[in-house]
């Protein structure tokens, strides 16, 4: 009857739960998946990136970021900031325009979508007539010019998006001013570019795709100048003083045109093809920067942007397609030329900023938007609360790697970060397919690369890291220079990192990889050359008749190897057969490292550099494990599966952001897919199943393994077949540590009858607190564990949580997850939750991620389900597999190959962006964007939104929505004003919200 007595009816506990747990997705780290548009506001110093799934992300100074999502989830095609405003306009691929603005709520800015609009052509015209191709926000901030496919240019009013029909610039009107012979040959075609004259806001430069360029006077509605280009136009750019502009063309040429008052029909000043072999040096503008322009035949696959400055020319060669770029200027408004200080390039897979001030034009190290996926992420490991000493050493090691970066401060510095300083220093370590481990500062909103460790040097690989690279000769033409770090092609998949374990107190790091390699490293502040000791661990031992058909082990480099400052490996343990290392544990106090594969596990003493023991966990009938997951046939299967998964992953992540009508459609498809005739075998697990010997978890504990009077060091291992092995260890005291061998002896073997894979093992001390990490007590960071009371063993399998007594392993308590809910444990971690109300209260619970993507919090030691949150979609296999929990109730998972979503389960530890964008006062005329709620509400426009500040974020959103609804229903502004006031003076939030709802429903009735 136990299961009918569900927890959760105790009001005290319920209240406590509210004080402890809260689920929030707080920030997305990394590089946006599939970026599609870039915008920059020189006024706000903010950059905006749009994606193919309809997200827009604004970035300023580190820590200043905003995210918005278009409901339509369509690709963002263009982003334009309104000059001198906190507003921007986005154009989506469904031809809709969206106006966004940054508004301040309770001291922090937020990004809101104000208004949307779809341009309609004149009645009877084809739909392409209204297809927007170019957008120009006019500097008057009153109107937008919209160039269309038909060649007509429509003018819409801001912020209402009302079409000003009398101001439409039709192609016919333009052609009236053009010489007859030219008109006959070509019509205007679509509007390719719209540029406002830099000095005279009444003049607008219009470029049509066939090459015609005209200067339009918007006061007199006439063409003042026309420029008869003969090449297909790509883009236009003004010189700052308005005396010249450049047009660039499809054939790789660009042309400079003079604009003078006396000559109404200009002839080109010069026409240049930059990448023809015979190329003249010219003294024109200080900088000409253009994208592409390479001869297609030989460099069509390059993604280049060329910068020409005097005689200096470099073609920056990017690792992926260039989406767009912009230049940051630091010049005075009166200067004759732009004085570019930095070039910001958004490529498909990374953001590159080039310092144009320093000699050689070096890249700037970005503080955010890191390309997490420059080599595919294979695993991640989070370490909370790093001691300052280690933190500084890692930073110093990292700074030695970053010498080739520019010293320029980050040029995109809009907004102010007002978030409190992160409470502690956190490290996120990611292992990559190319054998590197990246150390990220995960303390705050900006995930920042601190240091990169490569394990490749230990091994001999086909691609020697010393050759190639920067061999480009001086005289090479075109002068290509590779920039960026994105490199998804791994030379050797065996180098892939599978498991990472860092001891934050001692600086020991253990890293294990795909080919059974386990490296133990130590932090060294200096570069050094030394030999890496090499030890083989034969996990099969005397088992006969097995043949490993998987990959071979990696060849090691003989002799001393040069290592740069940072983590330097001193010993390599090579598992035999060289299967993927599936579990790893390091005990820095005992100087032991334990590792497991699908064949067994071993214990290595890295002080004496001696293997202590190995244990084979194979069942004799398990042939699959023996052949190895990478045997030829299967590897093909696997790689196929992976590539499908990759495709799916990209689809999944794009679908993730799709809601509304599309969402329903997708659900229909999904359902159909799920009804396809797949069948599942119902069979109890047996000892003969495949991969039962697969070691899933390893755990060191100082506990009562043999008897209840003496505790001793122990090693625990859990397998895929539901077996737990416990070994009693004898570690000699420190003074004789080098003289006596470490001994191990098997003390226990537990076979769980449900045979589900063991995911985690944990020992709770006499006060039901999980045992502290090694050295934690020695560093006074944790109370020493209670060694008086009886310890308990918690075994978490995919299906059940089970508590056993120690030393006599008898079952005490269990929670059957799968039998009741049909979900299985994927990730589990002990997390400490503090109360947001009372400072001194905190408790340890289990944070659990299931295969359905739910997060559950389960109490310790009574294993009661506390709370459940849906977090990841269950189809998102890679998201679930990539999830890591932190020790303080936060977590990360991949939402795309390049982005981590950060979430928080805790009310106390919450890292989220909080920033403010102040509008520099614009001295000029008319209506600046109104900040005041009252003003806003009193204006008669129907789209006004007002800000009401609520202490609870969830409620805020809902009220916002409610308000929007009210506004759209044209409830009088007075009413809204009244509610606003009411809200302001009302302290009781919930009552307020309730009242609002009630009023709304009353209105409706």
């Amino acid at each position, binding site marked *: *009857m*136990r299961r009918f007595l569900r927890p959760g009816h105790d009001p005290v506990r319920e209240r406590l739960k509210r004080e402890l747990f809260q689920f929030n997705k707080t920030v997305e780290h990394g590089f946006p998946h599939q970026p599609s548009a870039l915008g920059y506001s020189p006024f706000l110093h903010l950059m905006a990136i749009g994606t193919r799934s309809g997200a827009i992300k604004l970035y300023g100074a580190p820590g200043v970021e905003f995210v918005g999502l278009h409901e339509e989830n369509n690709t963002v095609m263009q982003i334009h900031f309104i000059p001198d405003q906190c507003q921007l306009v986005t154009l989506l691929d469904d031809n809709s325009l969206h106006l966004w603005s940054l508004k301040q709520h309770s001291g922090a800015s937020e990004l809101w979508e104000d208004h949307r609009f779809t341009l309609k052509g004149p009645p009877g015209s084809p739909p392409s007539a209204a297809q927007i191709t170019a957008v120009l926000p006019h500097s008057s901030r009153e109107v937008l010019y919209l160039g269309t496919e038909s060649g007509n240019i429509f003018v819409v009013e801001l912020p209402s998006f009302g079409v000003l029909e009398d101001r439409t610039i039709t192609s016919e009107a333009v052609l009236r001013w053009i010489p007859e012979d030219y008109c006959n040959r070509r019509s205007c075609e679509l509007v390719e570019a719209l540029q406002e004259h830099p000095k005279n806001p009444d003049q607008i430069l219009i470029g049509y795709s066939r090459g015609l360029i005209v200067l339009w006077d918007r006061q007199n509605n006439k063409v003042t100048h026309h420029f008869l280009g003969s090449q297909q136009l790509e883009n236009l750019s003004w010189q700052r003083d308005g005396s010249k502009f450049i047009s660039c063309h499809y054939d790789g040429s660009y042309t400079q045109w003079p604009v003078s008052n006396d000559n109404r029909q200009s002839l080109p000043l010069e026409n240049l093809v930059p990448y023809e072999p015979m190329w003249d040096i010219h003294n024109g503008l200080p900088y000409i920067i253009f994208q592409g322009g390479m001869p297609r035949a030989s460099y069509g696959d390059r993604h280049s942007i060329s910068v020409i400055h005097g005689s200096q020319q470099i073609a920056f060669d990017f690792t992926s397609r260039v989406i767009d770029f912009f230049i940051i200027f630091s010049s005075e408004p009166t200067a004759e030329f732009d004085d570019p200080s930095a070039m910001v390039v958004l490529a498909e897979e990374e953001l590159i900023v080039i310092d144009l001030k320093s000699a050689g034009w070096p890249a700037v190290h970005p503080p955010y938007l890191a390309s997490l996926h420059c080599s595919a992420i294979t695993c991640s490991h989070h370490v909370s609360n790093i001691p300052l000493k280690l933190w500084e050493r890692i930073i110093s090691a990292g700074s030695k790697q970053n010498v080739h970066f520019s010293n320029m401060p980050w040029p995109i510095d809009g907004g102010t970060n007002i978030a409190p300083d992160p409470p502690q220093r956190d490290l996120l370590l990611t292992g990559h397919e190319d054998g590197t481990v990246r150390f990220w500062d995960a303390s705050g909103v900006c995930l920042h690369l601190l240091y990169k460790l490569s394990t490749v040097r230990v091994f001999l690989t086909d691609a020697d890291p010393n050759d190639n690279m920067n061999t480009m000769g001086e005289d090479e033409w075109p002068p290509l220079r590779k920039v960026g770090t994105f490199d998804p092609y791994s030379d050797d998949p065996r180098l892939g990192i599978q498991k990472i374990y860092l001891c934050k107190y001692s600086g020991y790091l253990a890293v294990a990889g795909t080919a059974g390699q386990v490296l133990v490293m130590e932090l060294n502040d200096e570069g050094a050359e030394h030999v890496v000791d090499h*030890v083989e*661990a*034969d996990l099969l*031992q*005397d088992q006969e008749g097995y043949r490993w058909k998987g990959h071979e082990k990696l060849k090691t480099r003989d002799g001393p190897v040069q290592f740069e400052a940072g983590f330097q490996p001193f010993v390599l343990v090579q598992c035999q057969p060289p299967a993927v290392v599936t579990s790893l544990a390091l005990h820095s106090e005992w100087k032991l490292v334990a590792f497991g594969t699908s064949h067994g596990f071993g214990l290595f003493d890295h002080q004496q*550099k*001696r*293997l*202590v*023991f*190995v*244990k*084979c966990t194979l069942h004799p009938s398990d042939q699959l494990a023996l052949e190895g997951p990478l045997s030829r046939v299967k590897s093909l299967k696997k790689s196929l599966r992976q590539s499908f998964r990759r495709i799916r992953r990209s689809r999944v992540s794009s679908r993730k952001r799709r809601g509304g009508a599309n969402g329903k459609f997708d659900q229909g498809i999904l*359902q159909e897919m*799920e*009804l*396809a*005739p*797949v*069948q*599942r*075998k*119902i*069979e*109890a*697990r047996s000892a003969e199943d495949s991969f039962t010997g697969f070691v*899933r978890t390893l755990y060191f504990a100082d506990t009562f393994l*043999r008897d209840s009077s003496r505790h001793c060091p122990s090693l625990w291992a859990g397998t895929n077949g539901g077996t737990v092995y*416990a070994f009693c260890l004898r570690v000699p005291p420190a003074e004789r540590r080098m003289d006596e*061998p470490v*001994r*191990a*002896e*098997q*003390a*226990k*073997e*537990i*076979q*769980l*009858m449900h045979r*589900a*894979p063991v995911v985690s093992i944990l020992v709770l001390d006499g006060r039901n607190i999980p045992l502290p990490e090694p050295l934690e007590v020695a560093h006074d960071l944790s109370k020493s564990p209670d060694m008086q009371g009886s310890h308990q063993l918690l075994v978490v399998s995919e*299906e*059940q949580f089970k508590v056993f007594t120690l030393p006599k*392993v*008898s*079952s005490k308590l269990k929670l*059957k997850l*799968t*039998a*009741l809910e*049909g979900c*299985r444990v994927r990730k589990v971690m002990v997390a400490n939750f503090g109360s947001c109300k009372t400072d001194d209260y905190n408790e340890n619970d289990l944070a659990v991620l299931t*295969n*359905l993507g739910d997060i559950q919090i389960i109490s310790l030691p009574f294993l009661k389900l506390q709370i459940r949150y849906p977090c990841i979609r*269950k189809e998102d*296999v890679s998201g679930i597999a990539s999830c890591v929990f932190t020790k303080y109730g936060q977590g990360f998972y991949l939402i795309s190959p390049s982005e981590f979503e950060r979430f928080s389960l805790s009310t106390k530890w919450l890292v989220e962006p909080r920033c403010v964008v102040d509008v520099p006062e614009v001295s000029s005329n008319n209506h600046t964007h109104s900040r005041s709620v009252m003003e806003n509400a009193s204006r008669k426009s129907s789209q006004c939104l007002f800000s009401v500040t609520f202490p609870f974020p969830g409620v805020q959103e809902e009220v916002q929505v409610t308000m929007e609804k009210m506004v759209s229903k044209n409830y009088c502004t007075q009413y809204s004003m009244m509610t606003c006031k009411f809200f302001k003076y009302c302290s009781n939030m919930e009552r307020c919200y309730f009242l609002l709802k009630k009023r709304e429903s009353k209105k409706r009735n």
Partner: protein
Amino acid sequence: MIGYADVHGDLLPINNDDNFFKAVSSAHPLLRVFIQRQDEVDYSNFGTNTLSRKKKALVTLRNDNLRRRPHINISMPHDFRPVSSIIDVDILPETHRRVRLYRHGCEKPLGFYIRDGTSVRVTPHGLEKVPGIFISRMVPGGLAESTGLLAVNDEVLEVNGIEVAGKTLDQVTDMMIANSHNLIITVKPANQRNNIIRSSRMSGSSGQSTDSTASHHSLPTSHVLQNFHPDEMESDEEADIVIEGGLEPQHIPKLHSLTSSSLSRINGSSLSHRLQRDLVLNNNSGRESNGSIHKLLSSLKTDPRHSLVIPRGGIEEDGTVITL
């Protein structure tokens, strides 16, 4: 005293090979077996057209074979090891069947597959197609098939008292596997002709569901598993096996070199040996009976040729690959 009901509904004894096989071969798909205490047996009840009348040879069933010497009391129920049963007949609608499969210790595979499908439900809006989970295949020789209580295209409604509506195929698979030691599935049989008729004197083969003359035709599917007590299940569940490795402390060979050749598997053979022994000790009674139960099960198959269990692996199908 073992008897069975033949096609005409006559109660006939099972006391030798011949009438046993007759009983098996004539039973389609259910063999209704009656077990009565020796002293309560009213021999006059037995049909007259049995092949054998040797009443003296009437035997009670012991768990290790079918024949027993007369005048020995039937042993206590704990000596029996049920393999399957229909339960909760009295609370379920007639169209549903709740089957309990006991797997503990049994070497036999559960042996069935499930799939997604659609079923038609009567709702306030008329007939509606809803997704459902169905049995898609039976493994010949498996426990599921040998019970005769489950069949291909039966719709699965509940697993151990938890409704499967709204759950995915994978979730249901996981639930069934997690409960595989004692699986209770409520199905709506595809073939509704063999439903238990409540008014009949036969109350199914359930050991626990007693007389169910009261009819509850309109009763909807209940969440209560009447004959299933969680506590009982807990006790049913086999305990995890714990092997103490340190009974006679065994020192690992001292290793002075780094070569792996001098390493040996610690305790490897001795432990597995011990495990074997422990297993045997754990199920000392159950284990012995296993073999005979096997025989019983395999011969109970409706196949008249009484073929033995089809070798495992003869039919195999890849399950889903579970990514970790």
